[in-house]
């Protein structure tokens, strides 16, 4: 067991960043968003609505601990004390378990708000492909949610499903997307269920398919799965993708092709959308309180 897991193909790169152009000491409102997801946890600290620092890491077995760790890492080397953060918002699956947060806001609201910040006010449809769920969200020019649909019951169409395939094919998760871009697109894997898709993939490999082609067939199936969810909700332009799978060119390009839309290239890590949304809500809540 330990041996087969020692090569962790699913393990994506954790990261942290500090904005060199900002000094928190000159800021008026310091707010934060902490998105404790089922797979990853992000902390984003904003100074007057601009990203000051962030950390993106794997969620541990304990939500409060994961929230504390990611915030500690985000603040690492900034000399910004945690107590100086005026308003922290918790979001994601573990949102009620963020010890230093003043409020918990759903990840649906935070992702729409975050996508609005990342991709601009023209975004009307957001597809958030998370670690263990997938959400199709419609929003207005302010990033306010108008409708949404979600799958959180089934691993098909989630990051977890992709992790299973990375492990099965022994391809690092960061490389899956690029590898899947084959010249001749194969038929998508026919099983929806990740367990059955795995058996199907093994059978394809035995038939002599290359890993690239199997990944192409799986990325195609995954894209089709989420497109079904999006079509039930209705897609209005502009369209954007957030969450870890937004970094997978293999899935993104196939969703774009099937929906005949283009998702903008992310300039900020799309896994941060929820935490960014949380930090923006935090700022807005401080402003609201000071007006009274």
């Amino acid at each position, binding site marked *: *067991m330990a041996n087969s897991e020692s090569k962790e193909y699913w393990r994506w790169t954790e990261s942290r960043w500090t904005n060199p152009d900002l000094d928190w000491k000159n800021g008026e409102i310091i707010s934060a968003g902490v998105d404790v997801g089922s797979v990853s946890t992000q902390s984003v600290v904003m100074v007057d609505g601009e990203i000051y620092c962030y950390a993106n890491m794997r969620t541990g*077995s304990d939500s409060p601990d994961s929230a504390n760790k990611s915030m500690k890492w985000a603040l690492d080397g900034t000399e910004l004390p945690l107590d100086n953060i005026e308003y922290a918002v918790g979001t994601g699956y573990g949102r009620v378990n963020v010890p230093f947060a003043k409020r918990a806001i759903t990840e649906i609201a935070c992702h729409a708000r975050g996508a609005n910040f990342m991709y601009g006010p023209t975004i009307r449809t957001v597809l958030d492909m998370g670690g*263990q769920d997938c959400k199709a969200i419609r929003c207005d020019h302010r990033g306010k949610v108008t409708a949404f649909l979600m799958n959180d*019951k*089934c*691993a098909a169409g989630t990051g*977890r*499903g992709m992790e*299973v395939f990375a492990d099965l094919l022994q391809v690092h998760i960061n490389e899956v997307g690029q590898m899947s871009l084959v010249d001749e697109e194969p038929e998508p894997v026919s*099983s*929806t*269920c*990740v*367990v*059955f898709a795995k*058996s199907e993939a093994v*059978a394809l490999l*035995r038939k002599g398919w290359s890993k690239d082609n199997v990944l192409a067939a799986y990325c195609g199936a995954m894209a089709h799965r989420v497109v079904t969810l999006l079509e039930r909700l209705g897609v209005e332009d502009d369209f954007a993708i957030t969450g870890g799978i937004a970094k997978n060119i293999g899935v993104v390009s196939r969703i774009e092709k099937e929906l005949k839309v283009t998702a903008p290239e992310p300039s900020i890590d799309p896994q941060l959308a929820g935490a960014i949304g949380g930090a923006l809500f935090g700022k807005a809540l401080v402003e609201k309180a000071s007006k009274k």
Partner: protein
Amino acid sequence: MTVIGIDLGAKNTKVVILRSSEILATSSVLSGFDQQSSAEEAVNEALNKAKITREDIKHITATGAGMDAITFANDTVTEISASARGISKVFPSVRTVIDIGAEEGRAIRLNENGKIIDFGINEKCAAGAGAFTEAMARALEVELEKMGEMSLKSTKAVPMNAQCTIFAESEVVSLIHQNTPREDIIRAVHDAIADRITSMTRRVGIEKDVALVGGVANNIGFVDSMKRNLGFDLLIPKDPIVPEFISAYGAALVAQDTMNGG
């Protein structure tokens, strides 16, 4: 007259040889990637046991997920019909059949003549099939065959939130990390799959007697969870037609019917 029924399932290939309604032999082999050769292997094994040859066989009827791959079969019958035909022969009083294989689950309603009046299938999701318990056994590092017995030793019902097999694997691992007794986790696994099977069966309607067939019926822990859900006992076929042989037996009966001009 001697006939053969083959059930080429997702996991095992089962064969039943019948001579004038008498069971001559049964066999079961793992379904390999080459389904045709798995079928050959199972048939040869059963022929050897029965001490007869291929020339003695008048008709072969195939069923199961891989039935179309068997080129030497004379015809095929759906899993639903095979399962219904097999159980009606063993237990004529049965009105509801719950058939849970490795990758599929079915609920079938029968009338008093053993005719199918309604059915439901889950073939899309591993969480309603044997693959679910198998994945959980792997996560728990417990032999699949020991799951049933172990869960009967459970003293506490632990809730299981995940439906999806993939998510349930992670949930089982975190339950282990929380030092939840293995017996209680295994019972939670059986309760979870039993809940899904029960709701699938409710959709076609539950009328007594109810039979449980397919490989998963060998799991006494799952049977116990089903009993708790339904509030009454289920009929489970015994030797020589154990639960996983019902469809192969049904296919053999269909082969016999065909030869008798039925």
